[in-house]
């Protein structure tokens, strides 16, 4: 009896101690949390955490961050189940626009400081975030990137006396010169697992914008202009000029293009002797160059020039892309975070770490860590006609068909008409929701 009483009291006191310890360790009253979903993994995740650190330090709000490259599937499921994250960042706005149409995301007009936004962002970036054209802001851009950068090795150019082309004709001439000296001018890699074909789609959309202008470009991604229309078909055949007949202007031809991962595609430029001289890719490719060849230095070993204008009427046109944020649950913590993300201070943190450009004009040029990213930022600021990535604005099935079309075209350019007809058929169904 006595022992039983002893045991019980021991157990009770033990339980009390444990409870006290457990409660004691969470002594700071929680300021709440925000559930965030994005695609930033690896080193990018570290950068995003660095961006959020001042925010969490100051407000005490916890960020519950999850990332997945299968974000489309995850986000669709969570939204459909009624359990979405509070905030989500997507590299392509098409899914977020779908959610905006079905009323799953909140309008941000009263949440972010619209006056500050309009003062600090160029109007294009704000209009982009109003996909329903009803004046309601559903998406906010925090970081952006520039497409249509032609990478080259300055030493190679110097050795052969090549000049950076400043017009489309000059580019075609340069391409011909390189070819007649016995090397393929271009390196292109289309493989990308489930997204194979997208690098080629970048080529085509850049040509559409520069060749036929913003009105055609917009009508095209909005599904109002057919793929088989003369302007779009012309863009494909122009790309065909770059590729050469039977893809003879590309290192390794059609086979190598389809089998080479986009990240590895540019490295043959740096071989001795070089296997190609130019590579069209967005700015993130530099980390792949350096990963394959640690001794490469930006500026001396690799540099870029913007894709030359095709027509003088649309000079200075560039395709851009960015990370768009949407809010699914309107909580005080989520609102604070959304506001924070639009500020120059927050965006500058990642800019300084390298790899991103800010759309906020208040971020000083000096924050960009090297000459290459500075020039990219300058082009972005100065660009007269900036249009967002067409593929990322199309419905997902249209975009996937676009990528597949690139693969088919690269395999056999003669199939262009049937490829375009197929795209038209998909276009007819993809935009009805």
């Amino acid at each position, binding site marked *: 009896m006595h022992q039983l009483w002893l045991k019980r009291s021991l157990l009770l006191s033990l339980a009390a101690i444990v409870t006290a310890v457990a409660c004691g360790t969470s002594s700071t009253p929680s300021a709440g949390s925000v559930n965030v979903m994005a695609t930033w993994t690896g080193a990018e995740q570290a950068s995003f955490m660095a961006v959020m650190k001042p925010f969490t330090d100051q407000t005490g709000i916890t960020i519950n961050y*999850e990332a997945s490259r299968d974000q489309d599937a995850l986000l669709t499921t969570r939204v*459909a189940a009624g359990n979405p994250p509070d905030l989500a960042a997507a590299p392509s706005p098409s899914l977020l626009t779908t959610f905006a149409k079905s009323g799953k995301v909140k309008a941000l007009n009263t949440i972010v400081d619209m006056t500050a936004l309009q003062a600090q962002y160029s109007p294009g970036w704000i209009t982009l975030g109003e996909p329903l054209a009803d004046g309601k802001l559903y998406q906010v851009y925090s970081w952006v990137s520039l497409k249509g950068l032609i990478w080259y090795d300055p030493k190679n150019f110097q050795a052969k006396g090549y000049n950076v082309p400043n017009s489309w004709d000059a580019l075609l001439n340069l391409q011909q010169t390189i070819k007649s000296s016995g090397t393929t001018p271009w390196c292109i890699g289309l493989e990308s697992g489930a997204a194979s074909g997208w690098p080629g789609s970048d080529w085509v959309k850049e040509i559409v914008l520069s060749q036929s202008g913003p009105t055609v470009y917009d009508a095209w991604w909005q599904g109002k202009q057919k793929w088989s229309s003369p302007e779009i078909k012309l863009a494909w055949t122009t790309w065909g000029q770059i590729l050469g007949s039977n893809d003879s202007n590309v290192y390794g031809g059609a086979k190598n293009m389809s089998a080479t991962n986009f990240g590895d595609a540019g490295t043959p430029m740096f071989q001795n002797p070089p296997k190609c001289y130019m590579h069209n890719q967005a700015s993130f490719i530099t980390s792949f160059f350096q990963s394959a060849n640690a001794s490469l230095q930006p500026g001396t070993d690799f540099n870029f020039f913007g894709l030359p204008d095709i027509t003088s009427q649309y000079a200075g046109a560039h395709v851009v892309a960015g990370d768009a944020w949407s809010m699914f649950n309107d909580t005080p913590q989520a609102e604070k975070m959304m506001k924070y993300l639009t500020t120059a201070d927050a965006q500058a943190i990642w800019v300084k770490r390298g790899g991103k450009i800010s759309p906020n004009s208040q971020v000083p040029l000096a924050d960009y860590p090297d000459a290459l990213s500075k020039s990219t930022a300058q082009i972005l600021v100065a660009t007269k006609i900036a249009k967002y990535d067409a593929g990322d604005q199309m419905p997902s099935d249209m975009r996937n068909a676009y990528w597949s079309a690139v693969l088919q075209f690269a395999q056999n350019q003669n199939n262009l008409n049937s490829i375009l007809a197929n795209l038209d058929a998909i276009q007819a169904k993809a935009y009805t929701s």
Partner: protein
Amino acid sequence: MTIAVASPTSSTTARFSPRWLSDRLGGFVLHVVVIGLTVAWMVPTIGLLITSFRLPADISNSGWWTALSPPFKFTFDNYSQMLSASNLGQSLFNSFMISIPATVIPVALAAFAAYAFAWMKFPGRDWIFLALVGLLAVPLQLTFIPVTTELVKLGLTPEKLTAAGLPPFIPLWLAHAGYGLPFSIYLLSNFFRALPSDLFESAEIDGAGTLTVFFRIVLPLSVPAIASLVIFQFLWVWNDLLVALIYVGGVASVAPVTVTLVNLVGSYGQNYQLLTAAAFFSMIVPLVVFLSLQRYFVRGILAGSVKG
């Protein structure tokens, strides 16, 4: 015939006398074939192992076999980067918290059900069993939205469970169990059904109850089958990525090790060479489970349809 007692650990020499082997030339040819096949099968794995010790520049520029001759440029970089991944400790723990119940529950429930399907009669038994086999074909992706919608309605989200002091993995355990049950029941029923019926008759005569028969006769005799099932269910759950992301999410506190490792790679695929080291790291636990259950894959005392 005077054959040595067939003990579980000695394998074939008891059954095949040396004279038989040499008669058939089986010995040497057999070993060549077995070892040859195994080595050929291992080539991709060996390739990955060697790749995991190479720098990214070397990986993209030359094949892994070139690393086997001088100059050897091996590095532990990939492993050290992978091991210092943030949240690795927590996610390892999460993986165990997920995998162990998600294995125990379906194996146990399948054993109960398989016993009923194999040795009890009840109306609709055959049709229900057939339906179970058919359910093997249901593609998982289509179940995600309907099931998670219901779970949210019932309040079984990880956040609400953690707030109530319960493990947030409960929906995931149930999901893995639900998805794994058709195959488990299918497999175990097959083995249970193969047990000779006179075993059950004599047990009945001895007055043994259902539970006794189950725990003392059926289970011990089906050990190889149950061991196989445990191995498969465990490693399917351990290596699972999508189901975990759907039912429990990828937030650091609940993410299993598959999520942490796959997120080592940047969103464009930067640093994909880290996946080579990650593959071997995450292979360790399933292999340990497999090896430790190997001893159950022995000639059972009496498991097999003798009444052929």
